[in-house]
């Protein structure tokens, strides 16, 4: 299977935009880029989440656990996007959101 470039624009209900670009191979994330007009402090934590996503399966349960681990581990605070929005945004890239 070859690597596919996936992307999606996801608008959190009543909140901000998450724009996802993923390289996917065999159902796994090779690399992920998350951009958008949301707030997240500390700001540097986003690249940590992107790093954690590498090699994760594009699967709701796995992504849910991973995003949860990210927020608990970094004590990051999002505004305009919830942990669940990150999961939904990444999953929506499968169908081109």
């Amino acid at each position, binding site marked *: 299977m070859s690597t596919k470039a996936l992307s999606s*624009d996801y608008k959190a209900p009543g909140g*901000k935009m998450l724009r996802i670009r993923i390289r996917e191979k065999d159902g796994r994330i090779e690399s992920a880029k998350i*951009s*958008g*007009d*949301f*707030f*997240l*402090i500390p700001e540097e934590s986003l690249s940590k989440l992107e790093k954690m996503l590498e090699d994760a399966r594009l699967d709701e349960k796995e992504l849910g656990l991973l995003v949860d681990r990210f927020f608990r581990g970094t004590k990051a605070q999002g505004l305009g996007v919830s942990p669940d929005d990150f999961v939904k945004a990444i999953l929506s890239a499968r169908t081109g959101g």
Partner: protein
Amino acid sequence: MTETWRLLDTEYPDDPFMNMSVEEAIPRSVGEGEAPNTVRFWHNSNTIVLGCFQSADLEVNYDACKETGTQVVRRFTGGGAVYHDAGNLNYAISLKKGHPLVPDNDLQLVFQRLSEGTVEGLRSLGVRAEFQPINDIQVDGRKVSGAAGSVRWGTVFHHGCILVASDLAILGRVLNVPGVKLADRHVASVQKRVTTVRDELQKDLTTRDVRDAIVRGIERSYNVRLVEGQLSSSELSLAKELYDSKYNTSQWNLER
């Protein structure tokens, strides 16, 4: 005794990269205890200011930027892209972390509390301004000001831009607004969901008039006195360092 904050009008209208360097040097200095709590007002000539998490390629219409002489700079706070020109007034508030106005790290509370002075200032001019979560000040559902902020470097930082007399036609051209965002708000274009102070009041007032009103609004809202001051030499040299290492580089501004 009434608390005193420093008031700065330090600006580099034709150098958005230096403006942004000063924007970061101040909260860093306040957090270090080297500078007092500070309110800064400033302008940029035609510039897109991107939020720190935004993709330049997705948000910026480079062709329109070239045609209109619009530059692109990234700020260190999150939130969305905004367009600055001489008719747009920027303000920034830096308070040492733990200040009783914003005692904890709740960013939504920071936006709400530190927008109050601006709302009060705009109302004193006759604009029916209201804070609209997450980070907007609106008039009848149209955005007149957007804010962003952070809690870092030992500082609670809040900044915002106020559309006083900006050219909304250029604003609508230089920014790509994603379809899903517009659909969500049931409006057809970026131009229709923003307004300016001048349009609201049908009066030819300047960004200086608005700046003066917000100074008074801040003083009344927070029971403080703003006293005109200067950027210190250490803040200026920090800003110059940030200019060379960060804000005047395409790596910081464009690569995300």
